[in-house]
């Protein structure tokens, strides 16, 4: 029924099956929308947050999707600035994932703030240039615009839209100048990824999050940018491979995966060395100067043990890095799956720790650890972006040429 919209030379599942899939994701999405309305109408007291947990599940989800969506800016950097031509075969998909992640991030912020409808604009109008969150808001919004500009040519390449001469030429011309937008995206991403790290790193009243500075930027500024560039491609590879599993087709050639995985591996390796150096300096110099020891932050509570640091740096950092930098690791399907999944977990764990563990640690010596449990509206609104992402990927995959190598890898027999 919708065959006229499907790109030429590729095969898609029957429309009822597609609509059935959309309906399932749609139900989850509606559940999230219901939770959003509940939160907006009733107020944030329907969440599990409290005065110790002003930042909670949403802020973690926000930071996590932005880090995972880092694959968009980093592949753009590799394709348009470094000139890695093979990346063009995965960049459309990376941009699609980026758009999903950044729309989700802004949506989460719109739910999270106390006065979203009447005062969210204050952040632009009454901007405090000293606040990391201001930089986040400006760069995040600007980068979403860039991502949409990067995504538009893809939409214009739909078979029917492309027939209109104006859209055909517009798409062509946008492709011609895409390097400019890609470079702008890299610039903006470096700042907002870094500023999100800075959000935690500048809190000098919170020794667990606070880090020493280089000029005005705490080390977390650089670590967040670096980790997004390192782990973001892991998420792109993971989702591309997952799409291949679900569709039962090869969509991207192995050499493209191999290149991106190798670059990601070296980025993770260098990042994790920097992270270890940062952790060592924090534990050996910064904390003792404030009367703390490392174990103050990993003991006397029911959840946050030293295991979380080992998991973040060792299991989800060193291990995927070692797999991805070796040819043997990258050629094994099992190992590459393991590495990209661990990588995604690793960067999410880092964001979790920097937000939620920071809130959990007692800041006053005579206070105690506070653990927090999200309520269902928080969970529903956090799952919403996943359902939204599934819907966008499904529609994009069905109607847009997001995998340029699909036709070649899956020739249709006449």
């Amino acid at each position, binding site marked *: 029924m919708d065959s006229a919209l499907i790109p030429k030379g590729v095969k898609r599942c029957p429309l009822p099956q597609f609509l059935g899939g959309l309906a399932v994701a749609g139900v989850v999405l509606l559940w999230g929308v219901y939770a959003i309305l509940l939160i907006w109408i009733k107020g*944030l007291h329907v969440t599990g947050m409290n005065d110790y947990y002003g930042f909670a599940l949403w802020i973690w989800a926000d930071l996590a999707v932005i880090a995972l969506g880092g694959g968009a800016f980093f592949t753009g950097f590799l394709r348009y600035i470094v000139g890695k031509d093979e990346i063009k075969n995965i960049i459309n998909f990376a941009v699609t994932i980026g758009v999903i992640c950044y729309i989700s991030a802004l949506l989460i912020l719109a739910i999270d*703030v106390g006065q979203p409808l009447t*005062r969210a604009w204050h952040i632009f109008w009454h901007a*405090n240039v000293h*606040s990391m969150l201001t930089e986040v808001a400006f760069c995040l919004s600007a980068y979403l615009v860039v991502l949409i500009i990067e995504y538009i040519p893809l939409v214009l390449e739909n078979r029917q839209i492309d027939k209109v001469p104006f859209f055909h030429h517009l798409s062509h011309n946008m492709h011609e100048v895409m390097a400019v937008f890609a470079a702008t995206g890299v610039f903006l991403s470096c700042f907002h990824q870094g500023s999100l790290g800075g959000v935690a790193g500048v809190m*000098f*009243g919170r020794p667990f999050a606070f880090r020493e500075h280089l000029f005005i930027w705490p080390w977390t500024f650089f670590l967040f940018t670096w980790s997004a560039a390192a782990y973001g491609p892991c998420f792109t590879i993971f989702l591309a491979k997952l799409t291949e599993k679900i569709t039962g087709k090869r969509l991207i050639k192995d050499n493209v995966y191999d290149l991106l995985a190798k670059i990601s591996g070296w980025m993770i390796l260098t990042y994790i060395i920097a992270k270890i150096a940062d952790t060592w300096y924090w534990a050996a110099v910064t904390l003792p100067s404030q*009367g703390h020891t490392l174990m103050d932050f990993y003991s006397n509570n029911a959840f946050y043990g030293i295991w979380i640091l080992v998991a973040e740096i060792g299991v989800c950092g060193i291990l995927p890095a070692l797999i991805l930098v070796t040819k043997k690791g990258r050629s094994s399907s099992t190992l590459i799956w393991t590495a990209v999944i661990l990588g995604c977990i690793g960067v999410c764990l880092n964001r979790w720790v920097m937000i939620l563990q920071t809130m959990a640690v007692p800041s*006053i010596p005579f206070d105690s650890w*506070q653990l927090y449990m999200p309520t269902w509206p928080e969970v529903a609104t956090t799952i919403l972006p996943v359902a939204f992402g599934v819907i966008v990927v499904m529609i994009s995959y069905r109607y847009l040429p997001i995998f340029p190598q699909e036709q070649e890898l899956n020739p249709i027999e006449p």
Partner: protein
Amino acid sequence: MKQGHRKNKKFGMVIDLDKCTGCGACMVACMAENNVSFKKDETDKLLSITWMKVYKLTNGKPFPDMEICYLPRPCMHCEGHNGHSPCVTVCPVVATDYDVDTGIVSQIPTRCFGCRYCMAACPYHARYFNWWDPVWPEGMEKYLSPNVSPRMRGVVEKCTFCFHRYQLALEKVYVRGQRELDEGDYQTACTQACPAGAITFGDLTNKEHAVYKLKEDPHAFRLLERLGTNPKVYYVSSHEWVRRLADNYHPHEETGKVGGHH
């Protein structure tokens, strides 16, 4: 009246913990003075708005060696380094500010859009979010103070050192033809309500004010000084274990010998 700028002040408190009985009168006075809203169910203290909060500390020893100390905690009005309080610099919309004239960290609820970054940044948990719409029992709204705007749902609030009283005091001294406030002209509600006289309020830089001398007490300390927050609330306790609980110390370190005095 002579024209010209008034001298910059640093209003602050000295709280004598040896005198505090933990009666909570300061908390009640603060709530009444500042139109702090409350709910029917206040059992979850992590959701209660208490600009002034009294903590109960113990030395951790069993009876008969157990000792208890009550520690009232308003906003510390941190100066940080050159006015860079932990909460002020992080606010993306300048809804909180460090006033160099008074040393008071202000809060502008009508500017705040409820991102709660300031709450995350404050190590003293002195900032509170309005998770609910403020609702008072029927008739009680008539008893609200006309000098303080009640805060709406979705914004952060905190102790202001009763800043409206400072503004009223300025009017009073203007009428008197004075330029500078006398010590008694501007006192916070909690200071006046404390039956034990444990709270003393004034200009920390003014030698005429009681707080100037009290903060020099050898047993005076501030909470979490080592973080560099540079708070303007001092405490005095003759008990070493209390002073030790006020900051993080390594076993070999002595209280009062380390930390960031500004």
